[in-house]
């Protein structure tokens, strides 16, 4: 499974990468590609396909909601799951993400286990045709 993590914090990206690449159950190992902002994600997306995009909401330029909206309004990405992450606080941002069709939301800080659980949930939801 190929996953794109979009976050302007490189330590967070490394954390996510290590949490997900360690998930080495046979046949389900993940390859994690990093992008450090929304624009970079736009550039990287066509090089997919990605099963899942994990994106921070609060980024300058193209924010996580805009990225999500872009993915949802583009047919070539209809199979891409989107998991939004953000520091808890703005309920408004979280709610907007839900309405735009995010598959999941995870508040920072999260543990590696919580992240893996959220990823599994999104994957399960997607493959169930939801």
């Amino acid at each position, binding site marked *: 499974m190929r996953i794109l993590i979009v976050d302007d914090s490189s330590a967070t990206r490394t954390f996510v990468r290590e949490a997900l690449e360690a998930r080495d159950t046979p046949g389900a190992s993940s390859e994690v590609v990093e992008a450090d902002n929304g624009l970079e994600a736009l550039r990287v997306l*066509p*090089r997919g396909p990605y099963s899942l995009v994990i994106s921070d909401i609060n980024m300058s330029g193209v924010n996580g909601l805009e990225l999500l909206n872009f993915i949802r309004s583009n047919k070539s990405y209809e199979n891409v799951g989107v998991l939004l992450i953000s520091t808890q606080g703005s309920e408004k941002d979280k709610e907007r993400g839900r309405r735009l069709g995010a598959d999941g939301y995870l508040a920072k800080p999260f*543990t590696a286990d919580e992240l893996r659980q959220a990823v599994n949930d999104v994957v399960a939801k997607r493959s169930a045709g939801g």
Partner: protein
Amino acid sequence: MAEGTDKAREEFLSEAQELIEGLSRSLLGLDELQNSGAEDPSLINEAFRYVHTLKGLSGIFSAKAIGTLAHRVEDALDALRLGRLPLSAEFIDVLLRTVELFWQLLSHEKDGDEPPDLQPILARIRRLTSETSSQQSREEFEFEPALLAVLTEYEEHRLRTCVERGLDLFKVRVRFGLATLDKELDEVKLRLAPLGEVITYLPTGEAASLDAIELDLLLASGSDNNAITQAIGGTNVTVEQVPRRAVGPASSPLSKPQSLEPLTSNRTAMPTQHPDSEIAQAAAIRSVSQTVRVDIRKLDVLMNSVGELAILRGALARMTERLRTDGQRQLASELHRIYRSFDRRLSELQGGILEVRMVPLSQVFDRLTRVVRQISRDVDKSVRLVVTGSDTEIDKLIVEELSDPLMHIVRNAIDHGIEPRERRLEIGKPEIGIVALNAFQKGNHVVLEVEDDGGGIDEKFLIERAVASGHVAASEASVLSRDEIMNLIFLPGVTTRQEVSDYSGRGVGMDVVKTNIAKLGGVIDLHSERNIGTKITVTLPITLAIVSALLVRCAGNTFALPLNSVSEAFSLDPGRIKWIDSREVYTLRGASLPLCRLDQLLELTPLPASNRKRRFVVVAGLGSRRLGLVTDELLGQEDIVIKSLGKSLKQVRGFAGATELGDQRVALVLDVAAIIEEVLRGSEGRELVGSLHE
């Protein structure tokens, strides 16, 4: 314990440091704007984002205290950026104090230092933010819900603020090539900047392909459609005003994501290409981020390898020479060709690694800016810091070690140098004192100057202190030259002020500053004029990783002298040696240079006189303190990597370390600064100190 591997944790620490630096920079920018009565919402947002990221990170890595403080600061900045709180000077003050606390907390995370008490600052922030006005529900939005749906709360706030100011909203749709996205976007932003504020970019789903993308730049502007179109130029652009709608009830929620039309536009959509999977595969392997973060220790290891290769290079050269003398000319010249190309590549490699180690001085200068602000407030003086050359680059390790000595010098400049306000006005100086911080590169050195326009150093007082502390005999005091007097400030226990203030003279004197600079292979000079000001000049090598050295032989031993501390070398003419106060002094171009015989200094058995043809003098030292080192032979120049002598030999003075030479022998590297210190101090002859000026 914190989550994440060591690698992730290390990354956390260095990223946290960058974030705190960023926060500090934004806050200082805000402070400057505040002083000049201007405002820039993007700076508040920038500060917010730094601390926001810091909060998220510290949560993930279980740095609780940083998280707590970041949380409060974030709340405060959030209220500021969303316009719920006015920005006051006191507010900036408190925020800048938190930067100091963040540093302390971070060093607690790193090295387990005592964590600071956060309660007082948290209370102050709480008090400041309790005045939050809740103008949340003023006017409801008058734009399409589809537009609002993708904005973050902050972007929505900016949109609202701009509209309230009477600006119109435009969607500027531009098509970009993916490969050149950053560059093209920067260009467009630059052109739009004079027209208004770009609130966000919205990627449109329609025209995206493997190599191109369309962005709607949301621009709030007072100009009209035509002006904007003209400003951007180019053909791939459409500008469209976003219509305002009648004010409706609280924003109508979207029921389904599918109902989200991309922002309306009458351009025909490009057919969406499906990514060609082969190209996609290949491209995905490419690294996405343009920068990597590297532990400086890894670069040291690389540099060591380069050092080893340099030794091999030397061996290769000697082998070539041997082949040639053995008559194998053909083989020798082939080997020589290989040697030359090896030599070239090795220099490139070495240059490349050195370049990676370089960081701009702005890293320390930004901290100094904060210190200046803090101190000038605390000692109640008006001081303006003028910085030039902060993009000058220097070795990362030097930057790390530089911040304490520079901080001390700047503290002195403000606390001791700049006069109190009334005094300045009295003697006709501008009320605001100036501390200038200049940096520039000069050959293989970086020069840093800290200059103040304060009262200068009181000679008489300095002499009194030096006599009182026993460094100078009262009888000698009257014959000291001005520069010699100024150099007294670098002696231990000598200070320029009677009363010890909070800021300077906390036991750390200029002698410590000098020692620390010397450890970095640098020298410090001071120039001061009464009532005009003081200038302190620090000259540092650009890097410590690899140095060019002069190899000399003395009493059968080989020594290396770092070239950055050697100014010249010549053959000794015994007729020019004079004896002054039982010291040898050499007359060089009319000035006298104190001599030091290396074999005597190091207590080596001198070569028998019959073996000596002529001897040589190497002039070592920089600035005003120089010394002529007498040696038997000059061997030539070589690039060396200095290795430490190890813990057990750390106390031995006079040696900076050891190095392996091209012929695989080991040579000791002389610590020129320490030797000069030793010899000139031991002489007690003030005639010898700094007597050579050119």
